[in-house]
């Protein structure tokens, strides 16, 4: 945030009236809502004595027809609190807006309201207030907000998508295009040839009507012509030109197909590589599945553009220029007449096509909605059947199908009216040539051959016009695709490796958390000031209600996310300084939802260590109590699992992921609800496997059922993101605090279910 947002004149005067001068202001922030919840300019100013709020309601245009009471424009409300009276200031995120709240002399007070747009700003403001109240100096560092909404440096526009940081207005399509072309130099020769073919093809295209018109009628067929009567030769010439054009076309097409496919292939491989680099939060934001399909779609669109769009465009430009020049040379008056309707045609096409694209895109979207629905219903058919929802699904499909039908009809009606009209328009040029040219021929002002040449050109010039009006759209949508692709290629992973990372090929496994605060979203801290020392080889059980922040704690230790405040040390080194490779290779996770990818069981076990021998894989499976069930499968370790493969049970999946972790052999092990949702016998098997796995490693175990943590050296109890109790099971039971309550509640729940332990 800015330290001092520039005050409006009105605000400066109002503050001055209350004795607050700009020189005394430490922080100035503008909120965009009034306390009544209308858009307004609300200035919140912090001096070393006071927290002052000035609310200026905005001028409103017209009367609200919703019967709200409107204040006079420009009325202001001024409130000031002495900092010593304000106990604490908090930025709170309400569902669809935010407030800066305070406790003043023991009572809660709303200081100001703001929209989500300003949530980060006031989060920082609240922190700054804390510092000022403690009498500390504010440094530039305090104002830094790495995640703050960024503006386009060129035009000042707030980036529409903060994750992308792309200003659509200033997006330089030309340089993007050059960037795409930067993948091309490898294929210099081929591209040179393609271009050569294009020019040659255009030249042949232009000469063809000339040969068939002027040359044929005026020089060969006319008795006084230069080559009168040499029919055979002219036919051979026409044939040869056609053949040559065909050949060139084939060569160009084939070469182009290969080159553009290669370029797009290179692009896609780079994208995939880049995606592996990026952190989790990138994917959280973009939804991996849709990201991958989008990359594919974008790449295909680019390929289409390079394969069809660009060459056709270039050929057309060359051809059209050539034709115009030839026509002018042949007969400039007729040329002018022929080109007269062209602007009108372009104008009308420009009007019609946007409507057509809207229709097409709506059609596309409705169809994909339908596909998604069908897909869901099929993959989820067990759920559908289990809940007896078949009829409802059919009804849902009916509704969507109807939408598709409606848009299909609309598009059909539109196109079948519009296209004939366009054809008629384009026919006008031909009529002009026949009419005016015919008269000229009759009066002897023009030869019949020239007339024929012109009619040939007419067809060639109006045909591509339609295409040319749409190339602009095509081009910008392609550059948008290119942009999205480069965005991934160029994205800086937000868990960035330090410039000189500390290599730690063998970690001991001692972990310290110092004053760690973390939030996924602004003003909603999930962990508050966590302090924790974990010895190497110690097993810690994390306990707490769901949503307490247990998984989050493990996520930040393994640096899937970076913390904003405080630090996490492993063997005394800040995780941010450890080489990411070393960190990842020595932290292993066994999670509740096990990710199995399409492939054999062996491949899945060896995921973190692809070079593992078969014996190693089997040993790991045996330790994980997975060997026996694997051997019961007809294909054993080669059984293909994953989306389209064999369906494993929850417990089996979990044991596979334990085998995976055993093979991975990490120094720090994270078990996040690794034994939930399995039956008692399976749990025993998993427990047994886990107890072998945790030997000699630092382990953080999260378990829903508290008895599962009885092997832990210490238990850490989290509540609403805070560590509230730490100790062994018996210590915590003696304390009769949160842990004890949780334990009692679980026992009670078990008793109710009749399985008291």
């Amino acid at each position: 945030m800015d330290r001092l947002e520039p005050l409006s004149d009105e605000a400066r005067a109002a503050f001055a009236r209350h004795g607050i001068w700009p020189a005394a202001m430490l922080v100035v922030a503008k909120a965009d809502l009034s306390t009544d919840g209308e858009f307004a300019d609300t200035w919140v100013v912090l001096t070393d004595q006071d927290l002052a709020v000035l609310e200026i309601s905005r001028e409103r245009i017209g009367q609200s027809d919703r019967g709200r009471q409107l204040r006079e424009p420009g009325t202001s409300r001024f409130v000031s609190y002495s900092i010593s009276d304000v106990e604490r200031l908090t930025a709170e995120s309400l569902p669809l807006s935010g407030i800066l709240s305070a406790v003043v002399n023991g009572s809660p007070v709303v200081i100001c309201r703001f929209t989500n747009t300003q949530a980060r700003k006031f989060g920082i403001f609240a922190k700054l207030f804390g510092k000022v109240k403690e009498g500390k100096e504010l440094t530039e560092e305090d104002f830094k907000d790495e995640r703050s909404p960024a503006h386009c440096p060129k035009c000042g526009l707030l980036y529409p998508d903060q994750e992308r940081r792309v200003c659509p207005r200033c997006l330089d399509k030309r340089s993007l295009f050059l960037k795409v072309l930067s993948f091309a130099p490898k294929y210099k020769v081929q591209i040179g040839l393609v271009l050569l073919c294009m020019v040659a093809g255009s030249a042949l295209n232009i000469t063809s009507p000339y040969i068939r018109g002027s040359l044929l009628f005026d020089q060969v067929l006319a008795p006084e012509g230069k080559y009168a009567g040499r029919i055979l030769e002219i036919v051979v010439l026409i044939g040869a030109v056609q053949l040559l054009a065909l050949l060139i076309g084939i060569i160009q097409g084939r070469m182009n197909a290969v080159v553009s496919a290669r370029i797009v292939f290179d692009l896609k491989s780079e994208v995939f590589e880049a995606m592996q680099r990026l952190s989790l939060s990138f994917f959280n934001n973009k939804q991996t599945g849709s990201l991958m399909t989008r990359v594919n779609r974008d790449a295909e669109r680019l390929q289409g553009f390079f394969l069809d769009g660009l060459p056709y465009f270039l050929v057309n430009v060359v051809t059209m220029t050539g034709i115009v020049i030839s026509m002018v040379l042949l007969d400039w008056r007729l040329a002018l007449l022929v080109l007269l309707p062209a602007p009108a045609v372009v104008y009308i096409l420009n009007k019609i096509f946007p409507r057509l694209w809207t229709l097409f895109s709506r059609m596309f979207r409705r169809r994909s909605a339908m596909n998604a629905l069908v897909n869901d219903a099929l993959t989820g058919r067990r759920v559908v059947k289990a809940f007896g929802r078949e009829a409802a699904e059919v009804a849902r499909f009916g509704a969507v199908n109807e939408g598709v039908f409606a848009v299909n009809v609309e598009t059909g009606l539109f196109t079948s009216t519009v296209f004939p009209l366009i054809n008629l328009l384009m026919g006008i040029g031909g009529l002009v040539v026949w009419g005016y040219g015919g008269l000229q021929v009759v009066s002897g002002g023009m030869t019949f051959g020239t007339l024929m040449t012109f009619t040939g050109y007419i067809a060639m010039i109006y045909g591509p016009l339609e295409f040319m009006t749409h190339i602009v759209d095509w081009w910008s949508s392609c550059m948008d695709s290119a942009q999205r692709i480069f965005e991934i290629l160029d994205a800086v992973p937000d868990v960035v490796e330090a410039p000189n990372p500390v290599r730690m090929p063998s970690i001991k496994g001692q972990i310290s958390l110092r004053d760690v605060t973390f939030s996924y979203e602004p003003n909603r801290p999930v962990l508050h000031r966590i302090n924790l020392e974990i010895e190497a080889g110690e097993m810690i059980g994390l306990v707490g209600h769901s949503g307490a922040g247990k998984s989050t704690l493990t996520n930040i230790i393994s640096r899937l996310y970076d913390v904003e405040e405080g630090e996490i040390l492993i063997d005394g080194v800040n995780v941010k300084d450890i080489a990411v490779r070393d960190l990842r290779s020595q932290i292993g996770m066994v999670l509740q939802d096990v990710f199995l990818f399409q492939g054999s069981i062996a491949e899945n076990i060896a995921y973190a260590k692809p070079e593992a021998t078969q014996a190693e894989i089997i040993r790991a499976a045996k330790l994980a109590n997975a060997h026996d069930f694997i051997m019961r499968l007809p294909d054993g370790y080669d059984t293909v699992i994953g989306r389209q493969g064999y369906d494993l049970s929850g417990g089996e999946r979990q044991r596979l992921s334990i085998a995976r972790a055993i093979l991975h052999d990490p120094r720090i092990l994270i078990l996040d609800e690794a034994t939930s949702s399995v039956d008692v016998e399976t749990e025993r098997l998993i427990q047994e496997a886990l107890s072998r796995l945790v030997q000699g490693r630092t382990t953080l175990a999260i378990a829903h059922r508290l008895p599962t943590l009885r092997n832990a050296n210490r238990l850490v109890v989290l509540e609403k993101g805070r560590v509230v109790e730490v100790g062994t099971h018996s210590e915590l039971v003696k304390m009769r605090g949160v842990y004890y309550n949780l334990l009692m509640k679980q026992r009670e729940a078990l008793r109710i279910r009749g399985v008291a332990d």
Partner: protein
Amino acid sequence: MDRITHPATRRSLDEYAQIRYLDPSECCFKKTEGGFLSLSIGEKEQYERVDLVRAFPLSDSDSYISVRDSEGNEIGMLESLSRFSDSTRRLLEEELGRRYFTPVIEKIRSIEEEFGYSYWDVDTSAGQRRFTVRRGHNNLVQLGGRRVLVIDVDGNRFEIEDYTSIDSRYSRLIESLL
């Protein structure tokens, strides 16, 4: 602040699973000087600040409203706003309106579309506002009939009560974005 209460853990499981519906005749909501809502239930229970949370913000915004204390623990639920007196209901509606800040778009000054983003300049029930909407990603949601919810890049929401009744230029644009 670091004082921690565990009402949920202290109560028995049965109690824990039960929703407490607050009786309108016993509840007294007031707007405090600090701008929050306070609540007293009967003689004994007093809350200096309560927050209201809708259970069905889109489909049924006036029913099943959770009343929470300043720690975020549920005090109870209001079954329906219609069961309160007019003045209390207005108070609750205003508070909800501020929390679920969703200005109604009354007039569209302009919408410009560029490269998958649209830039809106509108008059709303809460004043004039400019915002940017990303194309796709369900940022324009049809809420049954002609009601449309517009979600900008910051997650702010705006509502159009009937998109067919606005300037035909824009209603067609909006339709194409749906």
